């Protein structure tokens, strides 16, 4: 099987414009293109839909307002009132992941969030940011986050390493969850697409039907994973701000 027809070929990075700055490869790739398309689409969606500034919103304006209120309520419920100033960051993160996921659902596009380096960079940004916020806010008291309260000292010997490990695993679990969901969904679609062709006109309908169902599921996953990414970021932020378990 040629590499062009491999189910994983869709994840290959192609350099559209080769560019090297001081030994650093900053080529404009297909991934870069879809990042730019995503931010343009988000900005257009949120400004064009709100251009009427209607008292009674239309369909597009409602969608923009629902996106805003969805994240605003998520922060209010999971972080509290002192999470308000992190709203632009969580909102940006959610919209970016959501639009990258959804753009990937259009045939022949590139799914930015199916790249482990991208999801890991986003997760690491959240992890480092949240840790810095925790340390700046609580100083050395931040270390008490790893010591569960009301536990015998003997158990702490076991529990503290577990807490530390679970804390440092966060960026990995956060990034791998999104990456694996996107990778699996898109690979599966491609594999079953290959079955449609190889089974031909008589039996090809079965995998085709499966693809239709799977596409619906993938749209759900696109929303769900963006939601999970945002809400976990909120929960981590809440831990850093309030230090309670």
């Amino acid at each position, binding site marked *: 099987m040629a590499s062009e027809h491999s189910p994983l070929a869709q*994840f290959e*990075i192609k350099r559209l414009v080769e560019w090297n700055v001081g030994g650093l490869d900053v080529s404009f790739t297909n991934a870069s293109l879809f*990042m730019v398309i995503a*931010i343009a689409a988000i900005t257009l969606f949120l*400004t064009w839909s709100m251009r009427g500034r209607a008292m009674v919103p239309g369909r597009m304006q409602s969608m923009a307002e629902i996106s805003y*209120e969805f994240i605003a309520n998520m922060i209010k419920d999971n972080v509290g009132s002192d999470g308000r100033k992190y709203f632009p960051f969580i909102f940006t993160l959610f919209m970016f992941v959501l639009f990258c996921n959804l753009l990937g659902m259009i045939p022949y596009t590139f799914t930015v969030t199916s790249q482990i380096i991208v999801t890991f*960079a986003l997760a690491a940004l959240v992890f480092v940011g949240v840790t810095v916020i925790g340390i700046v806010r609580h100083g050395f008291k931040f270390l008490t986050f790893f010591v569960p309260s009301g536990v015998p000292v003997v158990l702490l010997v076991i529990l503290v390493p577990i807490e530390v490990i679970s804390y440092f695993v966060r960026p990995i679990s956060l990034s791998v969850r999104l990456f694996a969901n996107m990778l699996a969904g898109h690979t599966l679609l491609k594999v079953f697409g290959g079955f449609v062709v190889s089974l031909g006109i008589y039996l090809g309908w079965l995998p085709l039907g499966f693809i239709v169902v799977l596409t619906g599921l993938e749209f759900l996953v696109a929303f769900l994973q963006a939601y999970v990414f945002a809400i976990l970021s909120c929960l981590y932020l809440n831990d850093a701000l309030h230090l309670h378990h």
Partner: protein
Amino acid sequence: MPQLNIADFPPQLVWLAISFVILYILMAKLAIPGISEVLESRQNRISSDLEEAKRLSEDADKAKADYEEALAEARAKAHGIVSELKASMAKEQDASKAELDAKLAKKAQAAEASILKAKESALSHVREIAADTAKSAVGKLVAFDVSDKDVEAAVASSMKGDA
């Protein structure tokens, strides 16, 4: 897996950083203020409308209370006028009745007086007529002229005897 090709990492990280920072700025400076402004103005509009509705309903309640008060006052006034009118009419009636009674009593009295007078005059005439008749009768019977004085005395004595 193409995702694990380390040579592809730098351009992706660079462009992710560029895109994410630009998106953050666009969201924080452009999109979010736009949406929150609309949501806020709607919230303000709703609360001001609610306030206005509350104020109007209070006004309506007040107007109703005023109306009821005015109605009660008017009723009381009407009642007063009716009872006053009734009292004055009764008084007038009593006065006119008394006047009528007095008039009738006076008329009755006058009538009685005139009857008495008529009776008296009739009685006095009876004596004269009796005297005349007696005189002419005596004259005719005995062809004797009797003096008036004697006749009258005789009549008076006979009437006395009758009485």
